[in-house]
């Protein structure tokens, strides 16, 4: 079993050079995030990842969680690790200062969370859900609810969950049936069944704060009749102490393909007459409230893709350096070499490495835009940053997670036969990655969001943000075309950019007139955008690395970055032609087969 080592050098490079972290430190409220603090946080968080979380990852996978009579027990070691996570104050890192958080930037949080997710994704789902619940309450709940729940949730003593899905309401939340009936005392009686509730029940914290979507008796049908409620596992007394057990129970937990360490609960509300719930914000606005946290939630799932890809790469690399097998082609010594000396294994390692680095770059860069959208003192800058974030989120979520499955699969391939054997540990990353393209909006949903709301139906004009983004990439291509050392990267990026432009124009033309054809190309368009923007970040990285080398730096990391960017340009960017053709010329082939002939 390989140990996980946080890729701090690349993280630092991406944060500082590509995501322009100094510009974030300059934003009001983020002054404390100076380079030395960032360094210290990354170091200590990385230590927590390698020493506490990573050793439990395989254990969580093998043992999973147990559910007996409504009581869910996490895998051995998880409870203690969570305790330590809370004691060390890590849970509070990105939370608002007014509720006891440290209020650190999203870009830095992304880097830190990447290390923890790499170390143990199943474990980290618990704090991630808590974070989502905290954000929902912070933005929309009354002061009374905030004061009751937020300090404990920020500290991590209480965890949070999101209860959206029901058996008949998956991607289509208009089908939600859970009921909320107002009571004389201002509370609500909640009844209904919720499924797929991540960390919906467990033994790691003293209370669990469920956020539940339900309908009031007089609510209009569809998405406009859904309200959001806080439904705690234990009711909270006026003095803040825990009171009676609420009428909710974990009916069972799911047997899943991956993330075994994370219990996925079926939650039954109101089997004894109704669970006590408290309305968050206004009635019938619940779904809208959920959407306010969507960018952060989707960024976080995209980050899971980056994290699993990195872990799979480290695992495969360790094996490729160790396993001796055959004499490489053209090697006259006649001596068998380790796998890394064989060209095809090299290709697979470069594939994993370059894609992971491109994904990390794109994600941190997007996270940095979120910080600017939030805190930049210039309203125009805030607006531009927000538009970029809105456009990039489905791309980051969809592209990073889809890629992570392929990368983890390549990791297994490098291992050969033992990769298929569970004890090797390579397969866990692929099984864990498999959910990431599904939850928090499937790739299909991301694609539809991208070509619809974010492109053709963009409020500030159809395709406006996509165009501004292409302009930035074009500038990079022009710079590269004049650069003797990086000319070839620029050439590939230029071709890829032209494909993106062609596909975008086709999308804008066809979105209204031929919606089925446009939606048939939604996911290819998402992957195309991810490949081009990821390739752009790698090209920027190459420019910066080359400049630093030309200035005399002997840092071998920079040399590696340059070669990795070249690989991405040569092997990943050419995929854009396939995506573009599939979008502009392939929709008929998707739709023409008569349903009866399937």
């Amino acid at each position, binding site marked *: 079993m390989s*140990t996980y*080592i*946080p890729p*701090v*050098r690349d993280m630092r490079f991406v944060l500082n050079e590509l995501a322009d972290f100094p510009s974030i430190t300059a934003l009001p409220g983020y002054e*404390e995030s*100076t380079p*030395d*603090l960032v*360094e*210290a*946080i990354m*170091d*200590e968080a*990385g*230590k*927590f990842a*390698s020493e*506490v979380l990573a050793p439990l990852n395989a254990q969580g996978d093998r043992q999973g969680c147990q559910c007996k009579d409504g009581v869910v027990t996490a895998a051995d070691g998880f409870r203690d690790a969570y305790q*330590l996570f809370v*004691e*060390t*104050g*890590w849970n*509070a*890192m990105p939370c608002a200062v007014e509720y006891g958080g*440290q209020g650190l930037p999203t870009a830095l949080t992304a880097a830190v969370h990447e290390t923890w997710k790499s170390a143990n994704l199943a474990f980290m789902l618990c704090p991630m859900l808590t974070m989502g619940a905290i954000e929902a309450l912070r933005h929309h709940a009354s002061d009374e609810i905030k004061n009751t729940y937020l300090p404990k949730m920020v500290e991590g003593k209480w965890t949070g969950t999101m209860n959206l899905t029901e058996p008949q309401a998956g991607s289509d939340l208009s089908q939600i049936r859970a009921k909320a009936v107002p009571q004389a005392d201002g509370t609500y009686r909640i009844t209904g069944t919720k499924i797929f509730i991540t960390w919906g029940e467990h033994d790691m914290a003293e209370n669990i704060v469920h956020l539940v979507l339900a309908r009031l008796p007089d609510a209009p049908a569809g998405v406009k009749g859904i309200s959001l409620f806080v439904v705690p596992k234990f009711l909270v007394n006026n003095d803040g102490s825990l009171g009676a057990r609420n009428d909710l129970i974990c009916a069972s937990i799911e047997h899943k393909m991956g993330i075994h360490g994370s219990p996925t609960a079926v939650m039954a509300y109101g089997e004894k007459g109704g669970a006590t719930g408290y309305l968050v914000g206004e009635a019938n606005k619940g779904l809208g409230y959920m959407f306010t946290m969507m960018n952060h939630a989707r960024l976080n799932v995209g980050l899971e893709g980056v994290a699993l890809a990195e872990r799979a790469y480290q695992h495969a690399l*360790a094996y490729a350096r160790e396993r001796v097998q055959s004499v490489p082609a053209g090697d006259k010594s006649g001596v068998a070499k380790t796998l890394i000396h064989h060209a095809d294994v090299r290709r697979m390692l470069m594939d994993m490495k370059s894609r992971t680095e491109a994904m990390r770059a794109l994600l941190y860069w997007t996270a940095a835009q979120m910080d600017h959208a939030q805190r930049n003192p210039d309203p125009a800058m805030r607006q531009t940053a927000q538009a970029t974030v809105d456009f990039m989120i489905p791309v980051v979520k969809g592209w990073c997670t889809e890629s992570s499955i392929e990368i983890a699969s390549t990791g297994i391939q490098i291992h050969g036969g033992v990769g298929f054997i569970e004890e090797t540990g390579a397969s866990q990353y692929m099984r864990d990655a498999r959910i990431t393209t599904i939850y928090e909006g499937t790739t299909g949903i991301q694609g539809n969001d991208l070509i619809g709301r974010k492109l053709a139906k963009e409020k500030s004009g159809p395709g406006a943000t996509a165009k501004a983004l292409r302009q930035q990439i074009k500038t990079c291509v022009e710079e590269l075309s004049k650069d003797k050392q990086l000319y070839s990267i620029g050439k590939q990026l230029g071709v890829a950019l032209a494909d993106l432009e062609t596909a975008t124009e086709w999308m804008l033309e066809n979105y209204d007139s031929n919606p089925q054809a446009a939606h048939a190309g939604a996911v290819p368009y998402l992957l195309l955008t991810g490949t081009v923007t990821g390739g752009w970040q790698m090209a920027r990285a190459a420019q910066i690395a080359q400049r630093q080398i030309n200035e005399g730096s002997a*840092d*071998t*990391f920079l040399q*590696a970055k340059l070669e990795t960017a070249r690989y991405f340009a040569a092997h990943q960017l050419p995929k854009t032609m396939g995506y573009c053709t599939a979008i502009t010329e392939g929709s008929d082939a998707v739709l023409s087969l008569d349903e009866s002939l399937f």
Partner: protein
Amino acid sequence: MKILVAVKRVVDFNVKVRVKADQSGVDLANVKMSMNPFDEIAIEEAVRLKEAGIATEVVVISAGPTQCQETLRTALAIGADRAILAETDAELQPLAVAKILKAVCEKEQPQLLIMGKQAIDDDSNQTGQMAAALLGWPQATFASKLTVANGEATVIREVDGGLETIALTLPAVVTTDLRLNEPRYATLPNIMKAKKKPLDVQPVAAMGIDVAPRLKTLKVTEPPKRSGGIKVADVAALVAKLKNEAKVI
């Protein structure tokens, strides 16, 4: 009572080191560096003595390049009060570090100098002993328990035959073994506070200390690969092989 703790920045213990192609050393380029784990135990022990009201100030020192500041910040986050970096890009061998520690001890006048029994990079296990000799202080190496009272330190040492208990008059040098304590993880609020604690950088060049290496590294090689074992028919055959082939008995 003031305690000085010496910490070293080393290759992280999780990193699988690789020998450089020219055999001049191990490859440190872009390798994760951390505090020597034995030194973490030293800083933890000092902070516990402060928390117990026995020590009043914990000062942490490191000698080496500017990046050692990161290691010192880690110590500050665990609970040290202030830090000193004796800065130099030169290769430092145990004797050089011991000389630096002597100079700092003379200035700071601590009652205890604590450090790890050895560093996981070169495994020298010499700096504490040399510093004690240069200072003329008593020393207790391989400590697995440390009690300080009435100007005296009582130390249980891990020795080959078992445990040895010794008493030392302060000031003294103590080097820590693995079982002394289990170092805590720094909390996020303390990491943020550590940033504001004083960190004094003093160039070694200005200290008037000769840090020139006394030992020369000829070459560094990977340990020999383990060759396959064999089965022997009986005890007699085993003894014969140990005697004649392995020449160990």
